[in-house]
């Protein structure tokens, strides 16, 4: 009976401890900046346009082929009297969140730091009733960064703290 008594004392000790539950819908635990929810497109705030030039690099690098990129000539380019230095710019952009495996590769391959992983809670609360709603188009992908609601963190592979 000794061991049984010991087990029961152990459970009793946990009975005395405080609950560890994170009361989710009421309390959102702060996420680390490295958190990877889903990829988002970033918005270039000074020149009012997305960073993305539609270079298809991420599309090719995505292991599950869940991105679709269409580029166009930038109407805002200097050559046409704009103030942007991007000759090409993204026209249409879809990411199928339903297939994305959150591997961060698209962020790493992007030469323009135009895409980054959503590390806010909005990136995680994405339950839908229809699969089609999980295919994000350009506006949805840009809106959060455009509104500046993203603590942007674009990792550089192999970067050290110092």
């Amino acid at each position, binding site marked *: 009976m000794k061991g049984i008594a010991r087990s029961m004392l152990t459970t009793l000790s946990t009975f005395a401890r405080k609950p*560890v*539950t994170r009361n989710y819908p009421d309390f959102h635990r702060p996420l680390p900046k490295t958190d990877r929810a889903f990829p988002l497109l970033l918005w270039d705030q000074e020149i009012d346009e997305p960073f993305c030039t539609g270079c298809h690099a991420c599309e090719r690098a995505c292991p599950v082929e869940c991105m679709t990129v269409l580029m166009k000539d930038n109407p805002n380019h200097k050559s046409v009297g704009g103030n942007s230095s991007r000759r090409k710019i993204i026209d249409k952009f879809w990411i199928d969140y339903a*297939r994305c*495996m959150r591997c961060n590769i698209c962020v790493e391959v992007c030469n323009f730091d135009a895409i980054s992983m959503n590390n806010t809670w909005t990136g995680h609360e*994405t339950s839908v009733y229809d*699969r089609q709603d999980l295919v994000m188009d350009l506006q949805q992908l840009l809106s959060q960064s455009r509104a500046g609601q993203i603590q942007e963190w674009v990792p550089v592979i192999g970067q050290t703290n110092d």
Partner: protein
Amino acid sequence: MAVTPAEEAVATTDAPEAPTTAPEIPSTVPAEEPIPVIIPGEHPNEAPRLVPVPHVPGKALYKQILPGVMQVPLDLVLAASRKSSLWPMTFGLACCAIEMIGTYMAHYDLDRFGIVPWPSPRQSDVMIVAGTVTKKMAPAVKLLYEQMPNPKWVISMGACATNGGPYTRYDRVLQGVDKIIPVDVYVPGCPPRPEALIDSFLALQEKIMEERKSTGR
């Protein structure tokens, strides 16, 4: 829903065979005959596995005998109670199942919402398809879904269950569980965080309250 005999054949081939009476392994084709290259998704034998399960809602008797005005409070009470005691079936398929278990545990504690897992489909309301549904597993998933009594809901958790996810290019993997059973809520992510799963439960509760007019579920 009537099962095609083919499906029963498929399902029963999973029955155990004594090693002694096992048939000759079919994968030993003599090399003379060419290797059959079969376009994935069009395998002759996998058609019966992929027959979708229709959801027959069924009608409650009080819907038929009570006048409409008296149904409203009943609907409300029933829907409220259903949404606050959703019992999932303990059914883990792959990696996502780990996060699902984690959601039951102390840090996230689905019990707060009255959600407790039950081992048997007979006592469960929700089926959380947590993980990759292979074509070998599909008949079992269908059977389990059918064995759940009405009203029943399905949460497709993770990329694999939603559309094959990372493994969608492999032809033994089902490209989305909604090919075989009706899905109510999709949770993206690979795997979704426990919070995402809780969020999907909240979404499901909203859905229940909305669709309480139809006793289907």
